[in-house]
């Protein structure tokens, strides 16, 4: 059993391939390209939450030294894609439209970009922006979620399509909860959380010709961004180049293109110079999305001996007035446990705020806080160990899709995690375990996320020295995509990892979507494999044509053709050893190359594919002051094949850290009198620091899921955080007897 698991410390694994660039400061992020003639742009934001702009006084700013332009709806050049219809071209009409930069005088939320000042230096642009004076016609705004929750609506996509994942769902007996012997009925609130990657959102926009745009942009997808800007500017996609070689974290906020990007592109066009625009930390709260404020209600029913008989799960999530944002908060409730009767109901509430965007472990992390807290509450009412309770309701096939799982090893996760956290020290009765003045609690939570896979293509090129170069348009926002791809290529070809290069983050490379939804290794990995195999096919044919002792290659399986110590051989045989330099010389070529595309197959219709995770937390709470210290976290992931153990473990640690933030400190608060955030920098919006994060022990079920994709990977980024917050909340209950259903859990809630 234990062989399926490994500890990151015992495992030899590739160092991050871009590590050297990152530790020397040589890695270039979007605001770090020193283009000739570069000028600086600084945004001016609205200071009201709703209304119209009456007038903009930009005279003082225009007169200020070094200021080249003050651009607003008054004088912005028309973005062709904005004009085609009232609907934004890239969005289905029913879902509203993304905010259009400087399109008209409407103000939809407080902090909306309403003008941009361009100047020769950053300081001059900042000063210029401070001089722009705006007069508004104010209208009554709505930003208070609680006060307006009654106005929540069914998302338009669900109205249109009853099969939409956000439509109402029911299975079994709709009224089963009413008759359940044991009941839990509780409401949960998750405040607005903000991605807040360390790198501020930045774009350097450069019109290289009247119809040729290059952007160095902090995004999670180079080609989706290329497509978006090509539409906006009515250009052929090949005329738009998007570079995102290094992305300083994103966690979802680079999955959408935002008005500040178009603002920079407009500015670059108007001043006819490359323009750099970097958001301020405050602007990161209002201009690039967030995890939406969400209310949830769970009604859970069980028999006295611990069988779930009903779950009703409702959710209302916040969105903007102009764009419908939805996420799958309720999906896991339909598939995680073997309850015969389930109802879910998802609504959105339109407020005068900016549009949310998926944030790590998107809706699932929100939903898991409620579901896994409720599971803990139910287990406690039944006086059953929470792990036992989950095992009693374990399901060996997907009760939602009614398909077998491609793979599921959650039981193995529970077993190993339990041992590692020291679960036997946990007492059912809260407040039973103490360490001096500190109350000690243990808690757990489960996570799951779809093992997504998309289309991706990789170009591979092998030279006479045996160097392998690969290219793909995918980005790497931090998980270590390049490292994993180099590992896959090395595993597939036998070429040493230091002879392999994986280039990414450029829209001109072969096809890739966004880095998001834990789908990168599952999508790009198979394309790497396919490209490597195609190269091996070429080698095989070339070698076999030499005849003689090398003729055996003709009948060898492609999988068996490998580089061993730099020479091409048929693995597991005493075949001839072929030197690639000699081979290429014989064939009078300098290199071979191929581009291969890989896409999801029909297994997706036959199996239900999910990755799973399990998080345990030991938490200490001070009995007098309510101070909370997470003392230990243990995370297990059933994520299929683990390609790159070191970077994978790091992702799990990062998810645990994010979960600590979610559980204990993160909350962006609006003063509804002004409709304006009052916690909008790192002094007010707390994210975990070193002192908040203990040792995190990470384990993997390293079993391939080749039904999901040929690499066998199920994805890791989301399940790393999903289930962490409830594990901590449950541990706090176990320590104190206090069940906190509104995050974050701060000391004042525990005294």
């Amino acid at each position, binding site marked *: 059993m234990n062989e399926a698991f490994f500890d990151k410390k015992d495992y030899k694994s590739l160092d991050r391939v871009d590590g050297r660039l990152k530790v020397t400061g040589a890695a270039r992020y979007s605001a770090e390209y020193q283009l000739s003639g570069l000028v600086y742009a600084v945004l001016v934001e609205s*200071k009201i939450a709703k209304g119209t702009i009456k007038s903009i006084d930009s005279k003082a700013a225009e007169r200020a030294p070094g200021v080249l332009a003050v651009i607003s709806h008054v004088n912005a050049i028309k973005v062709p894609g904005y004009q085609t219809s009232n609907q934004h071209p890239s969005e289905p009409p029913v879902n509203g439209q993304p905010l259009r930069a400087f399109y008209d005088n409407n103000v939809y939320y*407080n902090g909306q970009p309403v003008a941009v000042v361009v100047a020769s230096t950053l*300081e001059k642009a*900042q*000063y210029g922006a*401070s001089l722009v004076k705006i007069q508004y016609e104010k209208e009554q705004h709505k930003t208070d979620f609680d006060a307006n929750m009654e106005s929540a609506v069914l998302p338009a996509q669900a109205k249109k399509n009853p099969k939409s994942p956000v439509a109402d769902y029911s299975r079994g007996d709709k009224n089963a909860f009413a008759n359940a012997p044991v009941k839990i009925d509780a409401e949960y609130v998750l405040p607005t959380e903000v991605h807040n990657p360390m790198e501020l959102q930045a774009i350097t926009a450069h019109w290289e010709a009247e119809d040729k745009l290059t952007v160095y942009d902090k995004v999670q997808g180079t080609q989706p961004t290329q497509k978006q800007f090509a539409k906006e500017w009515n250009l052929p996609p090949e005329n738009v180049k998007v570079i995102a070689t290094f992305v300083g974290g994103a966690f979802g906020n680079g999955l959408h293109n935002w008005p500040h990007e178009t603002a920079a592109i407009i500015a670059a066009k108007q001043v006819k110079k490359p323009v750099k625009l970097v958001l301020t930390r405050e602007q990161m709260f209002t201009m690039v999305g967030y995890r939406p404020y969400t209310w949830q209600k769970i009604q859970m029913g069980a028999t006295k001996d611990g069988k779930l008989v009903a779950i009703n799960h409702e959710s209302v999530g916040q969105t903007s007035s102009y764009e419908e944002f939805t996420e799958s908060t309720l999906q896991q409730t339909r598939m995680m446990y073997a309850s015969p009767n389930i109802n879910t109901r998802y609504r959105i509430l339109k407020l005068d705020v900016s549009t949310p965007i998926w944030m790590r472990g998107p809706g699932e992390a929100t939903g898991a806080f409620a579901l896994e807290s409720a599971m803990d509450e139910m287990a406690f009412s039944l006086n059953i160990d929470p792990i036992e309770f989950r095992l009693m309701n374990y399901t060996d096939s997907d009760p939602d899709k009614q398909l077998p799982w491609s793979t599921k090893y959650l039981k193995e996760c529970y077993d190993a995690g339990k041992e590692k956290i020291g679960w036997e020290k946990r007492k059912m009765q809260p407040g039973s375990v103490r360490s001096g*003045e500190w109350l000690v609690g243990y808690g757990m939570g489960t996570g799951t996320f779809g093992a997504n896979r998309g289309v991706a293509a990789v170009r591979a090129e092998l030279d006479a020295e045996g160097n392998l170069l690969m290219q793909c348009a995918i980005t790497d926002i931090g998980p270590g995509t390049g490292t994993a791809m180099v590992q896959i290529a090395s595993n597939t070809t036998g070429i040493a990892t230091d002879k392999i290069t994986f280039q990414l983050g450029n829209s001109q490379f072969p096809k890739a979507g966004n880095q998001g939804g834990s789908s990168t290794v599952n999508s790009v990995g198979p394309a790497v494999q396919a490209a490597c195999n195609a190269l091996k096919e070429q080698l095989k044919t070339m070698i076999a044509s030499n005849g003689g002792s090398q003729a055996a290659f003709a009948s060898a399986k492609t999988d068996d053709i490998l580089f061993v110590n730099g020479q091409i051989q048929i693995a597991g045989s005493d075949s001839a050893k072929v030197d690639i330099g000699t081979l290429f010389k014989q064939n009078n070529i300098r290199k071979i190359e191929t581009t291969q595309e890989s896409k999801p197959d029909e297994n997706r219709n036959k199996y239900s594919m999910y990755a799973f995770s399990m998080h345990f937390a030991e938490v200490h709470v*001070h009995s*007098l*002051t*309510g*101070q909370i*210290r997470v003392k230990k976290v243990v995370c297990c992931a059933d994520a299929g094949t683990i390609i790159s153990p070191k970077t994978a473990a790091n992702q799990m640690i990062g998810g645990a850290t994010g979960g600590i933030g979610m559980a*204990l*400190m993160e909350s962006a*608060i609006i*003063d509804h*009198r*002004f409709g*304006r955030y*009052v*916690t*909008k920098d790192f*002094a*007010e919006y*707390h994210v*975990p*620091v*070193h*002192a*908040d994060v203990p040792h995190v022990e990470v384990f993997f079920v390293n079993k391939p899921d080749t039904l999901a994709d040929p690499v066998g990977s199920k994805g890791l980024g989301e399940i790393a955080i999903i289930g962490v917050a409830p594990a901590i909340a449950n541990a706090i209950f176990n320590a104190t007897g206090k069940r906190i259903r509104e995050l*974050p859990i*701060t*000391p*004042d809630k525990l*005294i």
Partner: protein
Amino acid sequence: MIQFQYVRTSTPKAAVDAVSKAQNARFIAGGTNLVDLMKRDIMKPEKLVDINNIPLKGIEQQGNKIVIGALALNSQVADNKLVQEKLPLLSQSLNAGASAQIRNMATVGGNMMQRTRCNYFYDTAMPCNKREPGSGCGALEGFNRMHAIFGTSEKCIAVHPSDMCIALVALDATVVTTGPKGERRIPFSEFHRLPGDNPEKDNNLMENELITAVEIPDNAFTRNVHYLKIRDRASYAFAVVSVAAALHIENNTIKDARLAMGGVSHKPWRLTGAEKALIGKPASEETFRNAANIAMEGAKTFKYNAFKLKLGPNTIVQALKNAAEPV
């Protein structure tokens, strides 16, 4: 940030002269708060007088007091042997504040001059009487979880953000200044002020006056001290509530005590009534609880900070317990 004039000076007199010559001029030392405020257009001095070259970095025993130069860095003071030995409460409070980097920049004088971290003060789109007299107090009816419960006014309920100052007010420090009218000594408890009708004034410094040193009289609080800071994460955050506790215990009887709180008022909040309730009593939880209850007399809470009525005294009790039995 507006453009401004910048000059360097190397004596207190030259600094005072330079700042007196211009309207709206400020001294700058570490800059950790002033530069931040200037970036956000909250403060717009037209002239900065850099005082870092003035030799005011010393930390030394002078007779029966320890004198710390106004330009001594927070990290230098925290790590100083003399301070650690004779003023451990001060060292603890300094290490509870900000981050190692900021403590390497921030000076003792600058720490005292820190302005409030009130969300409304920090946002020029919001009303704030401290930033813009007459514009109203955004926090009074707003998000006031971090705000004051003692000494508030209708005009302002902001809190003073320093940790160091909580220890200094407890330790009966004196602030030494020099200004156009010569040298002054100000008792620490009278240095900062309550907001009253003029929240724009954080302290009682006169115009163009420069802090040159802080003096702390010798005391018996070398062992039984504790600075306890409750914050929303484990480090690098401003206090929700903090307590500086110093006890002089002999035969389990409290011979003398000093107690002050942070995160509760516009100035470092000395708890003299509670101190009196400690003196002469056994060092027990009952004594501590009694003192803590006295400490909270007169507290007035707002919509989001009522919890301080419970967290405050609990933190006092715990700080006193930790002081009585240092780890």
